[in-house]
C-alpha cells in the first residue's frame, strides 16, 4: 500500500471515529440484539413527539455531515480516481464500507424514530369512536302515510289506479248513489257531519266509487285512499276523522272468487306470505252479496293472542259485489259488467300493527310519537 493511500485510509478512519462520537446520542435508538434477534422497543425512547421530531432532524443533520455532498467522506471519494489503478479498487471498497457502517446505523435509527413518531402522532390524534356520529336528526313520515304508500304500491302493482275525490260531498255521492236509503241511520246528523250549506263530509271513501266509474268506464280498477269523517267523540279507539282505502274493480265476468283472491293476495303482500284469510257473509248497502274479510293475526299467526282478542283472526274490512243500484247510479249495466268493492281502515290497521293504546296519538303530532316510525 502506498503511503498516499495509507494516509487517505487514516483520514477515513478518523472521520469514522468522529462519526461514532457524534452518533453516540442516537445509539439508544438502535435495535438490540437479544437471543440473536433484532429487537426494538420504541416505548423505551421516552420522548415527546416534538423531541422525537428534533432527534430526527439532528439525525438528518448528522447524515448530511457524514455522507452529504460536502462531507469529508465525499471529498475523499473524489480522490479515488487519482489513486493508482491497482490500489483503486481496494481503496474504493474501503471508503464504501466506512460509509455503510454509518448509513446503516442512521437508517436503523431513522426507521425506529419514524415509527415512534407515527405512534406518538396517532396517539395524539386518537378519536373516541363511540362519540355520536355527526348525523342530522332526520324526520319521520307519518305512520298513516307509510302504510298508505305500502297499500298503494301493492295495488298499483296489481293493476289499480289511485283515485281521489272531494272530502265535502253531496248527498248523492255520499249516500244515494251508494244505495243508502233516505232514512238510513248513517245519514242522520248523529252519525254524519253536515255543513251549514247542506253538504256532508264523506263518511266513507266509497264515495269515490261512483266518481271513478263516471270518470273511467269499465274495465276499471281503482283504489281511493283518503280521509273520512264520522261523528264519533274522540276517545282511545275513535277519532271523528280517519283514513280508509276503497277498492273498486268493474270488469266483465268478475265474481266473488276474484274478490277473495285479490284480498288474500293483498294481505299476503302486506303481512307476509303465510297470512291466511277467512270470508264471512255480511251486509253493506252498496254491495250484494257482501262479505267481511278476516286475516290471520300477524302477531300470533292465528294461535290467538290479546291483539286478536284470542280469535286468531283480525278484521280486514267490508267487501262485496257492487250492488246493481250502485252500478246503475254510474250508468253501468249490471247485466253486462260486474264488480267488486272493498274498504279497509288504514288507521285501524295502523293501530293494530303498532299496538297503539290510544288512537288519538295519530293526530296529536307529538314528535316523540312520530319519531318512532
Amino acid at each position, binding site marked *: 500500500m502506498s503511503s498516499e493511500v495509507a494516509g487517505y485510509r487514516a483520514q477515513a478512519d478518523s472521520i469514522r471515529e468522529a462519526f461514532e462520537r457524534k452518533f453516540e446520542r442516537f445509539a439508544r435508538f438502535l435495535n438490540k440484539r437479544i437471543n440473536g434477534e433484532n429487537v426494538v422497543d420504541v416505548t423505551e425512547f421516552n420522548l415527546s413527539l416534538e423531541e422525537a421530531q428534533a432527534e430526527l432532524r439532528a439525525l438528518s443533520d448528522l447524515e448530511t455531515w457524514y455522507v452529504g455532498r460536502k462531507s469529508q467522506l465525499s471529498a475523499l471519494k473524489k480522490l479515488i480516481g487519482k489513486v493508482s489503478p491497482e490500489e483503486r479498487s481496494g481503496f474504493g471498497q474501503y471508503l464504501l464500507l466506512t460509509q455503510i457502517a454509518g448509513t446503516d446505523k442512521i437508517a436503523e435509527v431513522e426507521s425506529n424514530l419514524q415509527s415512534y413518531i407515527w405512534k406518538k402522532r396517532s396517539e395524539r390524534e386518537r378519536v373516541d369512536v363511540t362519540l*355520536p*356520529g*355527526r*348525523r*342530522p*336528526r*332526520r*324526520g*319521520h*313520515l*307519518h305512520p*298513516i*302515510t307509510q302504510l298508505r304508500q305500502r297499500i298503494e304500491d301493492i295495488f*298499483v302493482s*296489481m293493476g*289499480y*289506479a*289511485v283515485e*281521489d*275525490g*272531494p272530502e*265535502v260531498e*253531496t248527498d*248523492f255521492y255520499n249516500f*244515494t248513489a251508494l244505495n243508502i236509503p233516505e232514512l238510513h241511520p248513517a245519514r*242522520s*246528523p*248523529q252519525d254524519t*257531519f*253536515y*255543513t*251549514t*250549506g*247542506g*253538504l256532508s263530509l264523506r263518511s266513507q271513501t266509497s264515495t269515490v266509487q261512483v266518481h271513478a266509474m263516471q*270518470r273511467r268506464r269499465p*274495465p276499471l*280498477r281503482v283504489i281511493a285512499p283518503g280521509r273520512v269523517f264520522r261523528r264519533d267523540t274522540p276517545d282511545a279507539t275513535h277519532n271523528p*276523522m280517519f283514513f280508509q282505502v276503497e277498492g273498486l274493480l268493474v*270488469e266483465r*265476468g*268478475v*265474481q266473488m*272468487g276474484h274478490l277473495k283472491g*285479490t284480498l288474500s*293476495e293483498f294481505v299476503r303482500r302486506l303481512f307476509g306470505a303465510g297470512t291466511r284469510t277467512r270470508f*264471512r*257473509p*255480511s*251486509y253493506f248497502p252498496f254491495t*250484494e*252479496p257482501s262479505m*267481511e274479510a278476516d286475516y290471520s293475526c300477524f302477531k300470533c299467526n292465528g294461535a290467538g293472542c290479546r291483539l286478536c282478542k284470542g280469535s286468531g283472526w283480525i278484521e280486514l274490512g267490508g267487501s262485496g259485489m257492487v250492488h*246493481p243500484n250502485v252500478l246503475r247510479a254510474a250508468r253501468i249495466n249490471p247485466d253486462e259488467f*260486474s264488480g267488486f268493492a272493498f274498504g279497509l281502515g288504514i288507521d285501524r290497521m295502523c293501530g293494530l300493527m303498532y299496538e297503539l293504546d290510544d288512537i288519538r296519538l295519530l*293526530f296529536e*303530532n*307529538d*314528535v*316523540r310519537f312520530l319519531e318512532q316510525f
Partner: protein
Amino acid sequence: MEISYNWLRELTDVSLPPRELAERLTMAGLAVDAVREAGEDFVLEFDLTSNRPDCLSHLGIAREAAALAGVGVRLPELTAKNVAGRAEEFTSVEIEDARLCPRYAARVVRGVKVAPSPEWLARRLQAIGQRPINNVADITNFVLHELGQPLHAFDLAKLTERRIVVRRARAGERIRTLDGAERELDTQMLVIADAARAVAVAGVMGGEETEISVATTDVLVESAYFDPQSVRRTSKALGLQTDASYRFERGVDYEGVRRAQDRSVALICEIAGGAATVDAIDVYPRRIEPPVVHLRPSRVEELTGLQVPAGESARILESLGFTPVAAGDDAEGKLFFSAPTWRTDVSIEEDLVEEVARLVGYEKIGESLPPSPVTGEYLAGDRRRRAARQVLTACGLSEAVNISFIDESNEGRFELLPGLQRVEGEGAFVKLSNPVVEGARLMRPTLLPGLLDSVRHNFNRGTRSVRLFETGRVFASSAEGDETASGEVETASDDIGKTAAGEGGGRPNEVEAFALVLTGEALEEGRAGGRELDFFDLKGALEAATDAMRVGELQFAPAAVRHLREGQSARILFGGAEVGALGRLDEDLAAAYKFRQPVYVAEVNLGALLAAGERPVRYAPLPRFPSVVRDVSLLAPRRAAFSEMRRAILSLGLEECRGVSLVDVYEGANVPEGKRSLTLRVEYRADDRTLRDEEVDSMHARVVAALEDKFGAQLRG
C-alpha cells in the same frame, strides 16, 4: 243479542255442540262474538248486521241453524188451554193512522193472577240477561225473545172505556212511561190510546198508568206491526231505545203478529191462570204481500264463482223459507220465489244469490286473481309528492296529520292561500252544522292552525324543538249562491281544486296545501345544544322540497303578511304567480299560543306547484376548462337585497360570469348602523379556454363597480 243454546234446541233439532254451531252461524253471516257457559246452558253472543232483524230471536236463529243443518224448526205450543168469550165483547180496536200501524191485534185474558214467574221462566230470561218482573210481563218479554215479536200487556180495567185507539199523539200530549219518566210527545209520534189519553208510545214503551200490577185481573195483550221508520224516529226523538223499538225499527214479521200473541196468551193461561178470548181483534186493513224475486240459476256462478245446480239453489232457498212461485211463460229459465214474510231484507236477485252462497259457504268459493285488462297508476303528481316528503324528512321535518276541522276562532287570523277564498263575508268558509268537538266547526281554510296546535302540544310536553310538515286539503266556499246540492254533475278533472270550481254541485273549493313549521334548535342525533333555527332553515326546507318535486325556481318577495312578523315575512312566487307565504309567526299570534320562542311557518298551494309541471332534466356537457372564483367583500346598506345584487351581477352581460354565491353576511360590531357586510363569490369560466388573470380582473372590476354604483356598496379591505 244473546241466545240460549238450550232454548234454541227446543225450537229445532240441531245437534251441533254450541261452539261448533257458533262457528257455522258465524260463517253463514250471523257473527257470534263469544260463547259463554251459563250453568248447564250456553249463551251465544251475536253481533248481527242491521239487515237481519228476523234473527233477533231464538226462532230466527233456529231457522238459520236448521237450514244449515238440514233439519226442521218446531214451533212452540200456541193453543190456550182455557177459552171463553169473543174479544169484541171486552174491547175494541180502532186504527186512525194505518200507514204508521198497518196491523194491530188485541186479545184478552180474564181472571189472571199476577205473581212472580215460575222458576223455569225466570231462569230462561236470566240466562239471556233479562230481569224477571212478574209472570205476565215476563211472558211478553219471553215471547219477544222467543219469536221476535214485541208484545205489550195492558191492565184492561185501567183502559178508559176499555178500548184501544191507535193514533198520532196530540200536540203537547204527555205520558209517563214504564221507566217512570214523564215524556212530552209530538204529533208525528204514534201512540196507543184509550178513549181518553195515550197509554203507550207505539212500539217503544208502555205507560205506567195501565201497567200490569198485582191487582190486575184482566189483561189485554197487544201484538202489532208498526212502521219501522216511524218507530225509529220516535225512539230517537225521545232518546229511548228498547228491545221492542230495536226490533220494530228494523222490521218484524208482519205475519208473525198473531202467532206471538197466541203464544203469549197460551202461556198466560198456563202460568197465570184465567180464560182467554177465543179470538183476537185483528185490524189488518191491507194485507202486506212479500216480494216475489226471480233467480237465474246461472247468476249464482256469475257472481260468486260457485257452481250450484238450479235444483240445489231452490232447495237452499226453500230451506230458508222461500216459497217457489210458478213461473209464467216468459220466464226464460228464471226461478221465482216469494220471500218469507220475516225476511224484509230480500228484494232483488242478488239477495237470493247471497242466500245460496252463504248457505253453500263462502269458504267453498275458489280464489283467483281477476285477469288484468288494465294497468296500474299512481295519483297524478304522487311521485313528486313522495319525493318532497322524503327530502323533508331528510331535512329533519316529521310529517304531521291534523284533523280537518278547526276552531272557528281561527277565522280571519291567517292570510289564506291566494285564490282559495272566492266569497267574502258570511258564508265564505265551510262550516259544520253539527260539530262533535265544541268550537271545531270550521273546515280548515289553512293548515297552519293545526300545525301550531301541534307545536303547542309538543311544547306542553317539554319538547321545544319541533319541525313538522303537513299536506292536506284546505277548504273555502266555491261561489256565492252555489249551494244547490244537486249532485249528479261530474267533472272529468283530476284536480280536486278544479272540481269544486262551480261545477261540483255546490261543493266547496278544495285545494291541496302544503305547510311547514319550525322552531327550536337544529338537532343532531345523540347530541344536544344545536344552533337556533331561523328563517333560512324554513326557507331552505321549503326550497329543498320544491326542488325534490322538480318545481322551477321560486321567488321570495318581502311583504307584509297578516299572520307573519313584519321584516321576516315573504310571499312566495312561482312563475310570477303568488303561491303562498313564509316567515316568522306574528307576535300577537305567538302570544295567543303562549309561544316564547320564534316559530317559523310556511304554507304553499301544492296543487298549483304540481299543476305547473315538472322541470325537465337537461344534460349540459361538463366544463372542459377550469373556473376561477373571486370573492368581493362589501359594506352595503341593509335594505340592499342579496337577490338584487345577484341579479345585477348576472345581468351585466358578462358571458364568462357563471354564478354568484353567498360566502358570508355579517351585521353587528364594527359594522355601521344601517349597513351590513357581505362577501360574495363570483365564478368565471370560459367554454373554450382557460381564463387569464387579466381577463378575470377586468370582469371582476365591472362587477365590483356595478355593486358600488347600484347599491352604494363600499369595497372592504
